[in-house]
């Protein structure tokens, strides 16, 4: 995809001076962020720090008020969401935005279809279809094989979160944004989630928003702290954990 534009040496993601205002409220202001290809980054911060807004601006769910976004060297600031997705960006949603009237396999199939050329095809899929095969593979990856024909509305909460991840892995992602994938999961499901994340191919970078420090620090190489819509500290997990300011703000006393 767009091999002519990206040579592979650029950064996966570059945000410059990005702000998003809702009326008078500045949800994020002047965010500068650079992520290398294959890098795994955690974004931490309290509720209302602007983390999900940051994701929404990056994917184009809504446009930033100011600033620019480069994705593998290409300026995608003016692109609609679907164009960014087709360039290899993926995300999961914190609030479930699944197709509850469709089965698990149909959901993943739609996700695979969205980044394929057959979006407008009027011909039904056959058993041997490559998209079907990749959808089935993804379902196995996130351990949902048993529930593949279940309606999404009948899935447990944890299964819905796993389905979100399967959909984000569809096609050939180059970079993924995970929005609190571990929220509400049982300890077993958390362990499975960590296995999935650490088991991703090494060229697949991601940003993960996570409240659970334990998960966040185990699946990331680098940590960005946000506070009141601004980036407040960046560093290796160990450095962030040791940082007195960070401890005062987030880690101390807060044990959820």
């Amino acid at each position, binding site marked *: 995809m767009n091999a002519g534009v990206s040579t592979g040496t650029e950064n996966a993601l570059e945000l410059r001076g990005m702000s998003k205002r809702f009326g008078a409220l500045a949800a994020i202001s002047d965010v500068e962020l650079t992520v290398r290809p294959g890098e795994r980054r955690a974004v931490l911060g309290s509720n209302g720090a602007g983390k999900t807004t940051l994701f929404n601006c990056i994917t184009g769910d809504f446009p930033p008020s100011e600033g620019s976004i480069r994705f593998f060297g290409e300026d995608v600031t003016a692109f609609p969401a679907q164009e960014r997705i087709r360039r290899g960006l993926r995300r999961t*949603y914190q609030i479930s*935005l699944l197709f*509850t009237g469709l089965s698990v396999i149909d959901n993943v199939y739609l996700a695979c279809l*969205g980044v394929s050329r057959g*979006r*407008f095809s009027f011909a039904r899929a056959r058993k041997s279809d490559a998209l079907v095969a990749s959808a089935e593979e993804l379902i196995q990856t996130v351990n949902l094989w048993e529930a593949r024909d279940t*309606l999404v509305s009948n899935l447990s909460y944890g299964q819905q979160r796993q389905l979100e991840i399967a959909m984000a892995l569809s096609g050939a992602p180059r970079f993924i944004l995970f929005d609190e994938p571990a929220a509400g999961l049982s300890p077993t499901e958390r362990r499975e989630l960590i296995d999935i994340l650490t088991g991703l191919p090494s060229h697949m970078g991601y940003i993960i928003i996570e409240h659970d420090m334990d998960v966040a620090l185990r699946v990331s190489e680098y940590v960005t702290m946000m506070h009141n819509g601004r980036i407040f500290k960046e560093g290796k997990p160990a450095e962030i954990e040791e940082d007195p300011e960070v401890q005062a703000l987030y880690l101390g006393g807060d044990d959820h």
Partner: protein
Amino acid sequence: MAMPEITDGGGARPSVRQEDRLWIERIPAPYWVAGVILLIIPAFASDFIMFQIFGWTFILGMIATSLMFLGGYGGMVSLAQMSFAGVAGYMVAIFGDSAIDTISMGWPWYITIPLALMIAVLFATLIGWLAVRTEGIYTIMITLAIAAAFFYFTRQNYDIFNGFQGFNSVFPPQLFGVDWRRPIPFYYLTLFWATVTYFAVLYVSRAPFGLALQGVRDNPRRMAALGFNVTAHRVAAYAFSALIAGMGGILLTWQSAQISPGTVGIQPAIDILIIAVVGGMRHPVGAFIGAFLYVILKTFAVDFLIAVGLSGDRFQLLIGLGFLLVVFFSEDGLLGLWEKLRASRNRDPLTGEVRQ
């Protein structure tokens, strides 16, 4: 319009896995029964019933199916379907033969019919592009205004649409030496295209395009985040619906041998909506059930009204009240009522639990 479960051929079933039986074994029994009955009807039905009742039912059913496709799978309730049908009907009259030989060009059917359908699809693409710029309940307002605009335009324009009079003596081609407007051939002609429409819509609903359209209906934001172009999908749905409506429009023009502004007026536009809603928008069979009821009412209501001591002019009252009743008691028309009934039958009367 959330669509939690579809009983029959719908979303609950996995689209991408198919069973390993022969296709002929997979056809459910009701289809066999309906198919056989429909095929042998001409053996005992009168010309009037074949041409006027069933021919008209199949045609209106097709146009209503185009609305069912847009509304049921795409979540866009359009009042412009009759206009799309009318465009195709008008084009057949303009490019083909009619009594108005100053306008009609007399081209052969194998050019006029594809051309008429193409123009209808183009027209619908344009209208769709306008209508999808706003969402939800606005669609119904905008398409109503557009249907009215088309009606007024055809009535005022004499150069192309021949104004108030429209075109008469528009006949189907004498293909294979058959007069397709005679009752039996016309019955099979409309039955054939109605069947094609029915299965085409069912098929597309489970094809990538149809699945994606249902995704757009339920969750447009998520679809964009999966790489789909939501606007393009909606506009394409309009185009596809116009193909169906256009075929219905051509058949309708042949049946009455004329097309005029009255065909594409506001009343017929609303009638199509009534047919689709009363039948139920979850499944294409609803459109045909609604059309059949409408035709029966329209044909026999006068006798009924006089029998209960009212003037035969009160037909609209009957239609309006019937429509109100159905909308009041069921969200999904008669199909919805049928499902409710079936669900309550399946329930154990003592415990209220669903029987397996």
